[in-house]
């Protein structure tokens, strides 16, 4: 498992990183935690000639309260997210999903920015980001721009991050007081999701006032289950009503088929898991 030869730089600022990226051109690749990139390099599925390590940029790491948003630096590790009180209080769903990722070693190195930029449809962080209407702050030569999650995920392993750009921050609206749950289904305890459902609901007097539902691995990108959301709003949080709403989970999905789960089984899982996730979130 030896990667092809590459050069390595570790810039100290976003501006330097952007410059290195521009100079490296097509052949440059960013490394964050390396938990997806390194296997890709070692299997020689990619052979960049330059690897730019964001690990030296202090400003990309950390979680802060930014008024009506929680802002998370792209280089913040899973481990730091899991320990963070702001996350627990305002974006609990993110923590719940993060907890299901791989094992401790991977969670110490893997970063939220890396996960979202990698955009593996089986990855666990896309669905919560999408469901929670996160915004991605992307830095390039001409400054920064902000892209809503709904426009960020484009295709398999493809995002709105353009050539020469770097994801610097992920901003979550606050969901203080919401109930949430991430229901993940996988082959082994430390594997990627065959299917997973991210849910946040605001329950008011026993009925669901607002709902956010995102699906993992039900298409080429994370998918927002808007049909379920609509069906939930205004309903009593009963098992029956929730199950009926969950039946709409496969609307707009394009479930992949692989050895673990063919599309029909995935679709079935999506409905069952959505019901369970909403029940748990509303409970």
């Amino acid at each position, binding site marked *: 498992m030896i990667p092809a030869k590459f050069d390595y730089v570790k810039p100290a600022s976003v501006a330097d990183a952007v410059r290195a990226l521009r100079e490296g051109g097509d052949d440059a690749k960013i490394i964050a935690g390396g938990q997806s990139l390194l296997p*890709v390099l070692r*299997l*020689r*599925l990619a052979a960049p000639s330059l690897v730019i390590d964001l690990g030296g940029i202090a400003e990309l790491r950390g979680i802060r309260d930014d008024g009506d948003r929680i802002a998370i630096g792209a280089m913040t590790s899973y481990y730091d997210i899991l320990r963070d009180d702001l996350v627990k209080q305002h974006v609990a769903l993110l923590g719940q999903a993060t907890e299901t990722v791989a094992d401790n070693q991977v969670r110490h190195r893997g970063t939220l920015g890396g996960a979202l930029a990698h955009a593996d449809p089986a990855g666990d962080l896309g669905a919560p980001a999408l469901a929670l209407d996160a915004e991605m702050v992307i830095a390039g030569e001409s400054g920064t721009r902000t892209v809503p999650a709904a426009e960020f995920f484009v295709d398999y*392993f493809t995002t709105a991050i353009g050539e020469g750009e770097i994801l610097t921050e992920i901003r979550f609206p606050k969901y203080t007081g919401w109930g949430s749950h991430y229901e993940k289904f996988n082959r*082994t305890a430390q594997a990627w999701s065959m299917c997973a459902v991210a849910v946040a609901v605001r329950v008011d007097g026993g009925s669901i006032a607002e709902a956010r539902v995102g699906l993992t691995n039900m298409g080429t990108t994370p998918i927002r289950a808007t049909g379920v959301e609509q069906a939930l709003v205004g309903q009593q949080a009963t098992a029956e009503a929730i199950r009926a709403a969950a039946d709409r989970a496969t609307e707009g999905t394009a479930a992949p088929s692989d050895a673990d789960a063919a599309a*029909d089984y995935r679709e079935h899982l999506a409905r069952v898991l959505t019901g369970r996730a909403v029940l748990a979130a509303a409970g």
Partner: protein
Amino acid sequence: MTTTAEPTTTPSPEVGKARVRKEDARLITGRTRYTDAITPQGTLHIHVVRSPLAHAKVLGVDKSEAAASPGVIGVYTAADLGVESVGLPCAWPITPDMKAPQRPLLASSTVHFAGEGVAVVVARSAAEARDAADLVDVDYEELEPVLDMEAALAEGATLVHPDLGTNENATWVLDSGEAGTGGRIGDAIAAAEADPDSVVVKRRFRQQRLIPAFMEPRSCVVDPSGEQLTIYAATQVPHILRTMTTVTMGLNESKVRVIAPDVGGGFGGKIGVLPEEMLCVALANKLRRPVKWTETRSESMLAAHHGRDQIQDITITAKRDGTVTGLDVHLLADMGAYLGLVGPGVPILGAFMYNAIYKIPALKFSCTNVFTTKTLTDAYRGAGRPEATFAIERIMDELAVELGRDPMDLRKQNWIPHEEFPFTTVAGLTYDSGNYEQATAQAVEMFDYDGLRREQEERRRNNDPVQLGIGISTFTEMCGIAPSRLLGSLSYGAGGWEAASVRMLATGKVEVTTGASPHGQGHETAFSQIVADQLGVPFEDVEILHGDTQVSPKGLDTYGSRSLVVGGIAVVKAVDKVIAKARKIAAHLLEASEDDLEFADGTFTVRGTDKGKAIQEIAFAAFVAHDYPEDMEPSLDADAVYDPENFSYPHGTHLAAVEIDTETGRVHLRKYVCVDDVGTVINPLIVEGQVHGGLAQGIAQALFEEANYDEQGTLVNGTLVDYTLPSAADLPNFDTAVVSTPATSNPLGVKGVGEAGTIASTPAIVNGVLDALRHLGVRDIEMPTTSQRVWRAIQEAQGRSTQQTPVDTHSPGAGLGSIDPNNPQEEEVQ
């Protein structure tokens, strides 16, 4: 120097102590000598160029670009190295007319499985060799792959090796009627069919293909710079490797030294003699430089031998009262493209175990080995016996269902009661000891069998979405391989003895060498405990040396749960000789008759006096040799070779409580209880560790693992991401216990334990899964019983046929794993 023996308090015996393993610190931290950590000055590195195709003609190999790549010393095909006629050894010709293809070091004209080597790059660094390997341009003409065993045997099938004229390697038969060890199965089946008070139950089971997945990848370093060619190898079998290397490469055995330093796991996967090892030998001799090969994980998954892969057609006959009257076993076993060192014999190791713990009057076993264009198969933890145990334990459950009996009661009715040991079975083996009643009674109690049956009833009644199943597996295995004469009668290419030496150092410390070279089992600790007790010396004073043919020149290595029951007994025999010699010197020094000496706790005392000599004093006396009997050499050292008279037959009862989420098909293993009888326990901690690891591997076969090939013959889950090895997080806390009916075939009373957990656990899980779902109409689910398979089985049993959408094995998406490493160019990873 006559001393008076001090009245010491008797030291507590070492045997039976749950000592933490002395090798743990270095093995667990990895701060030890694994083969890849050894790099003699000037070492060159190789990378093997492997075929991405399962079956293809090699039209040409263009090496020019690779040869010009930085750091490259050379790029070679078999012809370039002059090794075209070299064939790797198969040491087990199971029948006189067995068909054996030449297994080359590198394919010359045809590749026979995806992963087979075609050329080898030698470079100054491993990275340069790897880079250059990509530049070797091999021109292939694709041939039709041979993937399905039944199709491979059909008339007109594409042949893997056309020169053999068939895809059948051999058919091996054990027939109790012919052998005179029991009745004729044909008679038993005919009688059962004619008798309204009898039943005939037939089932087909599939043993999926598994990957041993040891932790340390295979590796070797061949250093030609001394008088002996030194081969460092991550192998289970340094002694066999030495002999086989000389035979294969035409070398003088005394010119070859093999060292297996610490070896990080094997599970049977490291008993081979590898093409890469022999390539390193050829290259080291040619280039006169040390040559190293270390495989990548991907290569290991693809090209290291696989395990299992059988189709089992099982017929059992019984009276309606439950008495089993006959068992007919017909197997197809996938050898893959070539024969491994003992590959053809692996299913045969199971032949004697289909009757298991039961009294079955008639048995016929027949196995046809088949060639396909897949990675070869060979020993994998249990080797033949897990397959046998699975088949018999599954069919006992099927019979219980057919007869409407409690599956445990049916087993009790048919097993060998403890009063009848020693018992000669229908397969011709003599089980020396055992007590199935005792192990089962304890397991049933620990498990709360009756309570769980009640809960199961309740869940069924309430139509609970989570159903409960109880899986039973009672097992025995023949292990401790093996009596040499018996192996000879099976045409095995070697004996089954083991060697040991004991050296008493001048200072009273003890060096013991064993030919059973461990690869993670803890021999050093267990053997030290035995020697400490036998010689009456402190545990810390005993050093166990192994794995270097200069240090332990004689041995047959570690596999088949043989280390303790054969290798450990050899140590005992050598210690006995040391004590006999020491007794002479003690008698001489104490001026007493040997008959008047007592040896206990490391000291010879003259009976009825307080005069004595400690073993350490005698060792020193032998060393200085100033005063010793005239009729002996001044040495206490001794060698022993022990050839067992019988196999060892551990047994046990394993019970699994399995919860199934019927909405998703998820199988959750809630509780696992096993009570194993492994005879005398030397170190309970090691025994428990072996049982735990074994259980994890056996459960993995039932629930998680399978090597999948696509219709082109490409291994599609060749990474650890999608091979789905379970971790501790996938398994419950095991409730294990041990009962001990000492073996009567060896002086320690020990039985093997290394394979027990693997052998017993697979059927326990699958029986549990089916037990949970039978009332829903589910009759069988193939292994691994994944959630998808379970869900589909439930749907189909309920009359809701599910339309399985075609699986695109090459689609990216599900994590890294579904990116096909063999077709990287197809994928665009951002």
